[in-house]
């Protein structure tokens, strides 16, 4: 048999459950491997091998061309696989927005233009640059550059980004939110034109790997079945 299509699927949490449900509805139930739990298969598609990875890893592996396709958020693709992946199909779950959020007491800041003014005058007053905590480093740089904002510094956040302003780790954040409740609980508000992207889980294909005819065929079958299901 020729080399299989490697399809990466989320390995934990809500995304894993939702992805498994979509495959089941599409008549492609995922079967976990007997010996290696991080590998699986699809009964009716023998030419597909399933790799279980975290959502951020899936985007990185797609960008690196070490898997053909996978299920991950559009936010992860924008951060780690920009230009190296095709969003084949939105799947209707894992919805979240990537937003710019500032401390709610910043009554003078409503727009990105305000934030630009604040960033530019920050260093002369405070002797350091305005800091932004985020896991979305590339997304943030692109969005801020698009708004002409240069006077800031990113502080890479490895978890609980929304707590950074309260702990003093950063002045503001770029993070995901679905209802905004967590942001509000942390005393933060979304900048009015600061919604960077509206994300949901997608079936994503890598542009960085060689596709054989058989792999293309197998992928087309997966896309068609999932499309009918969502």
């Amino acid at each position: 048999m020729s080399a299989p299509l490697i399809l990466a699927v989320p390995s934990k949490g809500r995304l894993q459950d939702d992805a498994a449900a979509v495959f089941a509805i599409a008549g492609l139930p995922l079967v976990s491997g007997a010996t290696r739990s991080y590998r699986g298969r699809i009964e009716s598609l023998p030419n597909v091998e399933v790799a279980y990875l975290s959502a951020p890893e899936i985007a990185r592996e797609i960008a690196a061309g070490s898997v053909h396709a996978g299920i991950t958020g559009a936010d992860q693709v924008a951060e780690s696989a920009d230009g190296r992946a095709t969003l084949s199909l939105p799947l209707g779950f894992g919805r979240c927005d990537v937003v710019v959020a500032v401390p709610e007491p910043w009554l003078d800041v409503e727009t990105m233009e305000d934030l630009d003014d604040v960033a530019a005058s920050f260093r002369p007053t405070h002797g350091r640059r305005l800091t932004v905590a985020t896991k979305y480093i590339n997304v943030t740089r692109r969005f801020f550059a698009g708004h002409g904002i240069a006077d800031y510094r990113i502080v890479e956040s490895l978890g609980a980004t929304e707590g950074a302003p309260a702990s003093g780790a950063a002045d503001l954040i770029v993070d995901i939110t679905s209802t905004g409740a967590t942001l509000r609980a942390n005393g933060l508000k979304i900048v009015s034109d600061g919604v960077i992207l509206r994300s949901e889980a997608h079936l994503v294909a890598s542009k960085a790997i060689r596709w054989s005819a058989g792999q293309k065929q197998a992928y087309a079958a997966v896309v068609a079945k999932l499309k009918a299901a969502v």
Partner: protein
Amino acid sequence: MTDKPGKLPALFAGAGYKYVELPIVYPARVFVELAGEELRRQLYLTSADGGEELALRPDFTIPVTLNHLAAGAATRKAGYSYLGPVFRLRPGETGEFIQAGVESLGRRDAIAADADMLKLAFDAAALFGIKKPKVRIGDSALFAALLDSLDLSAPWRERLARAFGDTPRLKRFIANADGTSEPPHSEFAGADVATVRAAVAEHFAATGLGEGGGRTADEIAARFVAKAELARGIPKRAAGALTAFVRIAGTPAKSLAALRKLAEREGLDLDAALAAFERRIDAFAAHRIDVDALAFAADFGRRLDYYTGFVFEFPSRGNGPLIGGGRYDRMTAHVGDGKVAVPAVGFSVWLDRIDKVGKR
């Protein structure tokens, strides 16, 4: 590479610049604090044993300045030259490339220093067989003088100053400054600083966020009130003058005449900046630079806020300049502990680009 780059240190030494060998690895914050997040994404980063973020030098200007400040009184006069690799992530070009150049610090005769610099850049280009380059020149001091002489509120003056060097953005600001696009804040409209300050303090208390090392209630309230000025926009007359200014381009002589005409028509006091511009052009001519071959553009400048006046560029046919230079009087005040502003001017030769041109 040809053997031509090797001739640059001798040229620079002959002009009185002392060759310096500098470290390649620096704390990343040195570059990020100075040039911002935009530069950071071009940096090759690594970390030290203790976790400190380090970067390979992305240019020589910052290392040379640090070296100058570390070795003696900031304001002393000194000229340095360098040749070596710099490192930047550049799409479509190699990440490690060679630059050579000079930096002059502490000279008080700014006009003469600017002219010496441009002359030396022409001599460097000639080493690579570049005979009649179409050199672009600009002068942000002219724009600064224009902003000072126009009827603008402080928040608008700051916005416009910051957009210099990014003309599409500057034009967008001018178009949006008609007083219609920015509605005043509904809550506390027309309130004074004390009232707003009290409201901000309440919000701080309610959210449990401390002012910490971040923005204070005073700062937020002051800017809140200043926003009313932004909402009022800028006078039509000022917008017209700004639009006319950014369009001015051509030979230095023609541009100078156009700038004088604009100043006269609008009743603007640009005398000092224009006189300096003219003296600089005369100094170029005294160095036998063909001034009519220089392409001035009133909107040409660098967005980095430590560049303060004269800038120039030898353009390539492809990406980026062959030689880029300018005056950066504000840098020493921004780096390290150097609180003193030291006059500084210099240029860098992008050897990977210029050496290819020389071969053709």
